[in-house]
C-alpha cells in the first residue's frame, strides 16, 4: 500500500507493528506479524486455537516482550515500555482468561481501573469514597458494560459471563484510545453477547479496537478489517468481503468449522 492518504480514516495508524516475533523455546508463537490499527475502526484477528492471537495481544500490552520486531503507538516506539506505561499512554486491554479482582465488588474493580487515570495514587488521606470523578467514571463503565444492577456484588460470586463483562468494564474505566479485547464474548449468554456487540459498535467511533474473537457472526458484523493468523503467521489480511472469498482462508480455516469452536 502506498503512504497514508489524507482522506477520512486512512490516516496514520494508531497502533502498528513491524515484524513482530515471539519464540517460546523452539516454538514461534508469533512470527513476523505486521499489522496496523486505525482510529475509528475495529480490526479483528481470527484463527484457530494456538494460532498466536493471545500472544500477539500480550506483546502489544507489554505482558510479554517480543523476540524481534517493533511496536508503535501513535507514532512513538513502545516496544520497550512496561505494561503500566503502555496503559497510561492509552492502551487498554481485556484478558481471555478472566483476570479481575475476584474478592472485590464490581464497583471496586471498576474504581481501581478509573483511579489509575486520576493522577498519582500516592494520596494518603482523602477517602476514595469522596473522590467524585473516580466514582462517576467507574459507574459509567459499569453501566456501559451492562452491569449496572451488579455494582455491589463480589465478582467471585458472579457468573462466568458476568465476570467477562467486568473485564470489559475495567478496560473501559481506564478510558483507553486503543482497546485490545481477547475473546470478550467467550462464555457470555446470547443476550449479553449481543449487548456487548452493540457496545463495541458504539465504541468504534472514538476508539481503535483490536478484537480477537471466535464468534464469526460478531466478527463479520463488527470488523472493518480482518487478519487471519495460523501457526503464528498472518495468512491473510483485508476487508471482510475479501477474507470471506479468500481461497487460502477457505482452505486453512473458515471451511473447517471444527477449528472455530475448539
Amino acid at each position, binding site marked *: 500500500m502506498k503512504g497514508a492518504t489524507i482522506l477520512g480514516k486512512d490516516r496514520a495508524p494508531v497502533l502498528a507493528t513491524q515484524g513482530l516475533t515471539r519464540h517460546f523455546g523452539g516454538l514461534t508463537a508469533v512470527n513476523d506479524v505486521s499489522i496496523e490499527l486505525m482510529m475509528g475502526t475495529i480490526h479483528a484477528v481470527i484463527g484457530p486455537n494456538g494460532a498466536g492471537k493471545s500472544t500477539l495481544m500480550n506483546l502489544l500490552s507489554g505482558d510479554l516482550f517480543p523476540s524481534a520486531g517493533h511496536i508503535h503507538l501513535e507514532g512513538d516506539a513502545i516496544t520497550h515500555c512496561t505494561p503500566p506505561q503502555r496503559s497510561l499512554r492509552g492502551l487498554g486491554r481485556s484478558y481471555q482468561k478472566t483476570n479481575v479482582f475476584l474478592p*472485590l465488588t464490581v464497583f471496586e474493580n471498576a*474504581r481501581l481501573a478509573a483511579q*489509575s487515570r486520576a493522577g498519582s495514587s500516592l494520596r494518603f488521606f482523602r477517602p476514595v469514597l469522596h473522590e467524585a470523578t473516580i466514582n462517576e467514571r467507574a459507574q459509567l463503565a459499569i453501566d456501559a458494560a451492562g452491569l449496572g444492577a451488579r455494582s455491589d456484588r463480589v465478582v467471585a460470586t458472579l457468573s462466568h459471563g458476568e465476570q467477562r463483562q467486568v473485564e470489559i468494564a475495567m478496560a473501559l474505566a*481506564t478510558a483507553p484510545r486503543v482497546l485490545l479485547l481477547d475473546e470478550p464474548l467467550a462464555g457470555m449468554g446470547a443476550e449479553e453477547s449481543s449487548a456487548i456487540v452493540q457496545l463495541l459498535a458504539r465504541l468504534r467511533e472514538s476508539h481503535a479496537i483490536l478484537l480477537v474473537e471466535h464468534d464469526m457472526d460478531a466478527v463479520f458484523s463488527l470488523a472493518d478489517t480482518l487478519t487471519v493468523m495460523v501457526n503464528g503467521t498472518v495468512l491473510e489480511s483485508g476487508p471482510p468481503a475479501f477474507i470471506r472469498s479468500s481461497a487460502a482462508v477457505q482452505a486453512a480455516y473458515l471451511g473447517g468449522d471444527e477449528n472455530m469452536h475448539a
Partner: protein
Amino acid sequence: MPPSHSAPGRTAARVMLQIALLLALACLPWFAEKYYVQFVARILIMGILAMSLDLLLGYTGLVSFGHAAFYGVAAYSLAMLTPAYQAAWFWTSFPLAVLGAAAAGLAIGFFVVRTHGIYFIMVTLAFAQMLFFLFHDTRIAGGNDGIYIDVRPDTTILGWKPFDLERYDQVYLLVLVLFALVWMFLRILLRSRFGHVLVGIRVNEHRMRSLGFETFRYKLACFTIAAALAGIAGYLSALQFGVVNPEFMGWHQSAAVMMMVILGGMGTLIGPVLGASAWMLLELGFQSLPVAGSIDLGKHWQLWMGAFIVLTALLLPSGLLGAWSALWRRLHHQTPALDADDPVAKP
C-alpha cells in the same frame, strides 16, 4: 453513587465505642499497679508493631520476615542519641528514630519489593539478619550485651515539661496516645487511594500493572510507611525497657510479630491488636505455670506456646477475629458480608 458504605449510625456507634475504650484505657494507671500498667503498655507497643506489619502482610500481601529490623533501628537510634548519664531530647530523638527506621525501610525496600513470593520472605529475612549481626558482632552499640539508656528522654520545651518519661504512668499514656494516632492514621490511609491500591496489589498485582499502576512505587511507599510505624514501636520499647540489645531485631522478634498478626487475623486493624494481646497474655500465663512433680511447666512455656499456635492454625484458620465474626454471624443468622468499613475483602 458509590455503593457499599456502612450506615452512618453504625459508624458513629463504632467510633463512640473506640473512644470509650480509649478513655477506659487512659484511666488504667489510677487503678492498676505499676506491673500491670507496664504490661498493658507492652501490649500496646506490640499492637503498633503488629499493625505496621499487617499493612504489609494482610493488606498488601507482602510477607516480610524481617520487620523487627525497623523496630530495632529506631530502638538503637534512641540508645545512640542518648548521651552517657544524660537525657536525649524527646522532640528530636523521637522524630529522628522514626525517620531512621523509615530510611532503613526505604533503602531495604528498594531492593526487596522487586522480589516476589518466597524470595521476598528470604530477602527480608536476610536484610534483617545483616542488621542483627551488624549490631551483634561490632562494638558500635554495645555488641551482644546491648546498650543502656541511663536517663529517659527529656520533654522540656522552653522550661515547660509537658510530661515526665521517668514516670511509668506517663510513659504508658504516651504509648496509648501514639497507639491511638497510629490506629487513626492507618484507618484513614486504608480508605484513601493509596490504601485501595495496596489491596489491589495483594489481590492481583499483574492486573494492577496492566491498569497502569507502577506497583513498585506503591509497594516501596508501603514498605517505608510500615517501617516508620515499626520505628514508633521500637522507640517506645527502648524507652520503656531502658535497654536495647540485638534481640530487638532478631528473627525471633520478626517471627513473633508475624504470629501475632496471623493469630489475630490478617487484613484488619483490630486483628493484629487482638493477636498481640493474646500473645502477651499467653506468654505471661504459660510462664507462670506451676511446677508439676519433677517438671517445671512454666520454664517450658515456649513448648505450650508452640502447641497453642498449632491448635489455632488448625482450628481457627482465619485467626481469632475470623472465629469471632463467624460466631457472631451464627448467633445473628447473618450471611457472610464484607465489612463495609474496611476496604479489604478476604480472598
